[in-house]
C-alpha cells in the first residue's frame, strides 16, 4: 500500500475556534459535541470526548500493539514503523458493503498529525487520561488548551521501579498523591536490608501503593522488564477508551476490585465472550480478538505483554497460535 504523505491543517472555525485537519484522504473536524471523520463519501462521527480519549491512547502508546479501534468504525493498525488508518475495515457491515477505506502512513508522520489534533481540540481542564469524574468536560467551543495533560511521558522502567537510576517510586513529594478511590490502600514500603556493594540489585517497592498513586487511567506503564517480558500495571476506572485489537496474546492479572471485558472478534467485531475478572484472576486475551474493559470502582490491573517484534509475523504466518496454550 502506498504511503500517504499529505498532511494539512486549516484555519480555526469562525464559530467554534477549532482547526480542521487532513491526513492523506482522511478529513477531521470537530464541533461542540462531535468529532467528524470523513474519507470521500464515507462519513463517520463520534462523541468528541470519546474521540479524544482514544486519540490520547493511540498517541501515548505509539499506536500500541495491533489495532486501536476508536469505536466500531475508526481505528489504526500498527505495522511498527508504518501504520494504517481505516474507516470500517474491522466492521463486517462496512466491509460487506464495500464501504471500508484504509490508508497507510509513516508512523512518525501520522503521529505528528494526531498530536496536532490532540493539542488543538483538547480544552483547558479536560484531561483525556482522567476518569470522567476527575476532569472537566471536553465539550463546547474552544477554550484554551491542556498541554500538561496530553504531554505526559509513558512511564517505562528499564529493569524495575525503585532501583537506583530507574523509574522513581511515586510519592506525594514528586506529585503523585493517593487517588480518592484508593485511600484505604496501605502505603508501607517493604523492609530492604542491603549489604554494601549490592545497592543496585537488592530492591523492592510497594506495587499496590505505586498503583494507588497513578494519575491516569487505562494507561499501562512498564514496572519490571525481563528481556521481552513486560509487567505493565495500570489503574482503571470507567471504560477503556478503545477496543484494543490484539496482534499477539496479551495477559491480564486482576490485582484489585473488578473489571468486565467485552470481547469481540478482531476482524468482524462479532461478540465472542464476556470476561469478569476479580482480584487474583488471570486471563489471556487471544491474538485474534478485540477487547474493551469496564471498571466502576477504580481497580488495579496487571497487563503482561511480550514485546518481541517477531510475534505479529509469526502469528500472521501461522507459525504461532492465537491462543497461548492448548489443553
Amino acid at each position, binding site marked *: 500500500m502506498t504511503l500517504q504523505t499529505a498532511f494539512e491543517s486549516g484555519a480555526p472555525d469562525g464559530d467554534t475556534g477549532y482547526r480542521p485537519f487532513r491526513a492523506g484522504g482522511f478529513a477531521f473536524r470537530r464541533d461542540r459535541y462531535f468529532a467528524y471523520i470523513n474519507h470521500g463519501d464515507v462519513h463517520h462521527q463520534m462523541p468528541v470526548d470519546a474521540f479524544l480519549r482514544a486519540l490520547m491512547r493511540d498517541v501515548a502508546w505509539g499506536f500500541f500493539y495491533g489495532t486501536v479501534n476508536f469505536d466500531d468504525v475508526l481505528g489504526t493498525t500498527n505495522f511498527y514503523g508504518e501504520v494504517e488508518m481505516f474507516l470500517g475495515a474491522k466492521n463486517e457491515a462496512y466491509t460487506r458493503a464495500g464501504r471500508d477505506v484504509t490508508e497507510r502512513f509513516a508512523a512518525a508522520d501520522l503521529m505528528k498529525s494526531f498530536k496536532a489534533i490532540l493539542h488543538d481540540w483538547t480544552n483547558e481542564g479536560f484531561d483525556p487520561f482522567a476518569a470522567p469524574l476527575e476532569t472537566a468536560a471536553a465539550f463546547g467551543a474552544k477554550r484554551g488548551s491542556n498541554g500538561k495533560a496530553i504531554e505526559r511521558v509513558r512511564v517505562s522502567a528499564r529493569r*524495575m*521501579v525503585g532501583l537506583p537510576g530507574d523509574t522513581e517510586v511515586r510519592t506525594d513529594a514528586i506529585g503523585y498523591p493517593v487517588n*480518592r*478511590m*484508593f*485511600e*484505604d*490502600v*496501605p502505603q508501607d*514500603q*517493604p*523492609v530492604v*536490608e*542491603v*549489604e554494601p556493594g*549490592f545497592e543496585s*540489585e*537488592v530492591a*523492592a517497592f*510497594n*506495587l*499496590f*501503593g505505586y498503583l*494507588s498513586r497513578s494519575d491516569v487511567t487505562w494507561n499501562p506503564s512498564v*514496572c*519490571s522488564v*525481563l*528481556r*521481552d*517480558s513486560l*509487567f505493565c500495571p495500570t489503574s482503571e476506572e470507567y471504560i477503556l477508551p478503545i477496543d484494543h485489537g490484539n496482534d499477539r496474546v496479551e*495477559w491480564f*492479572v486482576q*490485582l*484489585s*476490585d*473488578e473489571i468486565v471485558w467485552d470481547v469481540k472478534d478482531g476482524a468482524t467485531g*462479532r*461478540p*465472542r*465472550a*464476556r*470476561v*469478569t475478572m*476479580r*482480584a*487474583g*484472576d*488471570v*486471563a*489471556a486475551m*487471544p491474538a485474534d480478538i478485540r477487547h474493551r474493559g469496564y471498571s466502576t*470502582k477504580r481497580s488495579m490491573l496487571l497487563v*503482561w505483554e*511480550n514485546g*518481541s517484534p517477531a510475534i505479529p509475523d509469526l502469528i500472521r504466518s501461522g507459525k*504461532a497460535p492465537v*491462543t*497461548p496454550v492448548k*489443553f
Partner: protein
Amino acid sequence: MTFKTRFGSMADYQKGGVEVFNDDPRSYVFSNVFDVASKSKPWERVCVAKNFEYVIEAMRASGESPYWSARHDEFVVCMDGEVEVELQKLSEPARIIESRDGAHRLDALPPSKKMGRIVLGRGHMALLPKQSAYRFRAAAPSALMFQTIEGPETVFRWTEICQTEGAAP
C-alpha cells in the same frame, strides 16, 4: 464518599469467569492466583500464564523454601501474607543455571556472599537478580507470583486450574 478496595487472599477470594457467546472458554486460560496457591504444595511454581518462553508462576509459600537461582532476572510479587526473601551472590554462577532459562532449585547453597534481606507484605514487589541464589521464609501460608521464564521447576496443570466450560461468573 469512602471507597473500599478489594484485594484477594487465599482465605478470601471470589473468582470471576468467562461467559462465551461464540468461543471456547479455554482460549482465555482463566484461573486465579489465590485458588492455585491455596491448592498447591508449598514452594511449587505453578504456571498461571505463558507467552512463548515467558511465564507467570503462582506459589504457596509456607515455612522455609529451598534455594533457587536463574541466569536471568526474575521478579516476585507478594499477593497475600508476608514473606522474607534472602539473597546471596554466588561466587561462581551455578553450572546448572547456565544450561537453560528459568529458576533452578539448588541442592545446597554454593559458596556465596550475602547480598541482603527483604521482607515483602501484600502488594510488594522485589527483584530476584540474575545469578543470585534466593530463598523464602513464610511464618504463615502466603501467596507469591513470579515474572520469570519457563524452567525445570515450572509446573503445568492447565486442566486443573483453568475454566473449561462456559459459565456465568
